[in-house]
């Protein structure tokens, strides 16, 4: 087994081109479990933890570019104002040592339908920046995942960063699990209101083979808010609107029965999460001064 330890981004891309069989390791919180249990026998490992370029974040024209090697703890500590939905999801991940080590790029790389970053990234309409030695491209988050643990990332590519629009309105993330920490989501839901564009963003986790948007729920709410002038008046939303939104969120799910929950339970839970998330976001919007 070969160990490759690039110390810069260009070196990493060169190594990726020369050794497409090498498994990248960032925080290692997914890969090491596979290695420790003998479920993964790669001929080479490539450590990404020394690449300073991947560990940084910064604002660029209304977006935050979050390096793929940025950890959950860093997101919680530094990005809660700009990216509240992502920060809430980061807080729901694992335990302190997992959050200290696990990265946003590793979450995308694993492409688990239960990955907690994915719903808020869907709701915020984020883009994934990937690169190979010869090419750099950005992929809308909604097109990044193609199946459970599968993404469009090429064998010669690495994830460089995630571009997330700075929040312009309330964002929430909710997750159902058997305890408040250390759980893979039974299901999860993220909602983001984008008042300047009069848009609504959603993302469902553990609700299908890939993270899913609830387009019909978004359109219903956008239509209702436009027709009633509620973006301007900030009037309370009727219970029937909250309920309808929850139903449409649940209808967007394509859940399965598995060890964590039945499909029927997931649908029902998502209906409740959708309704609650909207009431929390709308209360926050009504309370906001600007």
């Amino acid at each position: 087994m070969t160990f490759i330890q690039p110390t810069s981004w260009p070196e990493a891309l060169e190594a990726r081109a020369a050794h497409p069989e090498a498994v990248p390791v960032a925080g290692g919180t997914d890969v090491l479990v596979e290695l420790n249990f003998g479920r993964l026998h790669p001929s080479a490992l490539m450590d990404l933890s020394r690449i300073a370029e991947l560990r940084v974040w910064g604002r660029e024209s209304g977006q935050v570019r979050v390096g793929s090697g940025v950890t959950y703890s860093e997101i919680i500590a530094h990005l809660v104002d700009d990216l509240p939905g992502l920060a809430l999801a980061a807080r729901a991940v694992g335990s302190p040592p997992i959050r200290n080590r696990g990265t946003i790029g590793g979450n995308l790389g694993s492409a688990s339908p239960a990955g907690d970053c994915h719903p808020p990234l869907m709701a915020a309409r984020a883009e994934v920046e990937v690169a190979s030695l010869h090419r750099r491209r950005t992929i809308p988050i909604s097109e990044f995942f193609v199946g459970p643990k599968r993404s469009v990332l090429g064998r010669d590519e690495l994830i460089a960063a995630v571009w997330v629009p700075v929040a312009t309105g309330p964002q929430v993330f909710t997750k159902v699990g058997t305890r408040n920490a250390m759980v893979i989501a039974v299901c999860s839901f993220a909602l983001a209101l984008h008042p300047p564009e009069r848009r609504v963003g959603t993302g469902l986790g553990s609700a299908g083979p890939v993270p899913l948007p609830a387009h019909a729920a978004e359109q219903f709410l956008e239509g209702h808010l436009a027709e009633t002038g509620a973006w301007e008046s900030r009037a309370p939303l009727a219970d029937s609107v909250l309920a309808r939104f929850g139903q449409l969120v649940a209808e967007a799910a394509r859940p399965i029965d598995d060890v964590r929950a039945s499909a029927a339970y997931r649908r029902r839970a998502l209906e409740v999460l959708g309704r609650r998330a909207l009431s929390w976001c709308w209360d926050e919007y009504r309370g906001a001064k600007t």
Partner: protein
Amino acid sequence: MVLGRIPGSQDVRVSCTVNGERRVAEGVVPSESLLHLLREHLGLMGTKNACEQGECGSCSVYLDGVLVCSCLVLAGQAEGRAVTTVEGLAEGDELVRVQQAFIDAGAVQCGFCTPGLIMASHDLLRRIADPDDDEIREALAGNLCRCTGYQKIIDAVHLAARP
């Protein structure tokens, strides 16, 4: 870039600072964890191995001052870095306050979880000098104990914060 650092071999040499001392291990397989490096190559048995999947926290150490599960870090990722294990907290025979508090509060039964819980509690008390119950529970959420029922562990953290 480093490719199999021992010439002619795929195994790597890892050199890092452990509890303030320079340590070198030869013949480390690239897929070995930092936990294996500490226990099997360096003979430091304070850091415990229970689950090897990040669930129990018994392998917790500081890596460059950051609390991590050593079972989820590649040994090679520790190259050139500083590791502090539970053996490295005390100054000589003088236990640090949180270690003494675990003894005084009766937070140790079989003791298997204790090194990890000491590390996680130490880390918490660096960040929050006087944490409340919720903050303690959140900080220790990744550490499993099969004996104590946790209450005495929470008492120990309070005792360390307010002796």
